[in-house]
């Protein structure tokens, strides 16, 4: 698997992207469900403005890491849900490794100070 270089200057953006992909890796979801899942799975540590989620979703969709589809649950309300693509899964695996390495480095640096 191709190893990606961790871009520390875009930490927040990377973090958002990876969390969204993680939330989608098992099941397709609506935008607000992704936000709710991230909040709940992080036990409230990741609380963010849900509005900021949508540009990231659209960016990931443009890069073909996720795919958005419309469902007509009722006539008056159209809803969009997202699912992860093969390309997205591959990218997510790379990101996961990069994040693990990054977190281990931080822990190791902090450990040296004990």
């Amino acid at each position, binding site marked *: 698997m191709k190893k990606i270089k961790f871009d520390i200057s875009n930490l927040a953006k990377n973090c958002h992207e990876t969390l969204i992909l993680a939330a989608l890796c098992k099941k397709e979801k*609506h*935008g*607000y469900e992704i*936000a*709710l899942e991230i909040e709940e799975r992080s036990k409230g540590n990741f609380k963010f*403005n*849900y*509005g*900021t989620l*949508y*540009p990231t979703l*659209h*960016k990931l969709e*443009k890069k073909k890491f996720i795919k958005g589809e419309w469902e007509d649950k009722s006539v008056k*309300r*159209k*809803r*969009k849900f997202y699912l992860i693509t093969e390309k997205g899964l591959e990218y997510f695996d790379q990101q996961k490794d990069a994040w693990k390495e990054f977190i281990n480095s931080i822990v190791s640096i902090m450990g040296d100070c004990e």
Partner: protein
Amino acid sequence: MDRFSSYLEELRNNPDIPENLRGNIINEISGDMNDIFDLFINRGLSEKEAEKKVLEKYSLSDDLINEFVSIYRSPVKKIVRGIADQVKSLWGKLLLFVIISLILFSTGIELLNTEFYLNASIFIWPVLFIACFVFLISGIEFNNIFIKKNPDVERSKARLANIVLLGGLSFLTGIAGFCIELLFASKRGMIFDPVLSFLMAYTGPDSGSFMFNIDETIIKCAGLMMLSLFILIFYSFIWLIMNNQLAKIEYLIKHFDKNEHV
């Protein structure tokens, strides 16, 4: 109109995002806002509390709209915006002003000479026709933006885009004329390839007989290219100045809801 439509008005009215995408984005966000509202109601909140909570979670700032704009802005607009951002500093503006003034001044003197038009290619006339038309649009917009100071922002934006497009069109007309002139010259030299024709004219055994036509063609083409480049640079400069002023007016209208004293 649903409960949260009014909160998405700013997004709905943003012309930098293509209209069909804007509709989809609004449908998506408002659909999710309504769903999460229902979820809060099911968890026992009152309608008022649920609405307040949804709006807390979805604060739709200018940054969010700008993010969408940056995702969906066309590549041409991205380049143009990049250039406009580059010249926002005082030094950038000054440098641009000096360079463009030098180009316009040095070329402009030559364009004031009547002989230039007598010797130039016939294709300068369509180029000049487009330039006159753009001049008219620029004059109207200059009046709206700098004299009346009360433009219809959307209409002015469309007109300013037309100034750049038509400036580009006059340049393309110049290039097309240039190519046609070369083609005619090469036909006169009985060789269909313009590059070969030039080479033959200057290095071939019969170079003397071609020389007159080629020299004439070069003068025609140079004049044509100079004029079309001049028009492109001139109107790009006009666009840049008016676009900056329009952006200031738009900012004031948006944030202070007034359009006087710009």
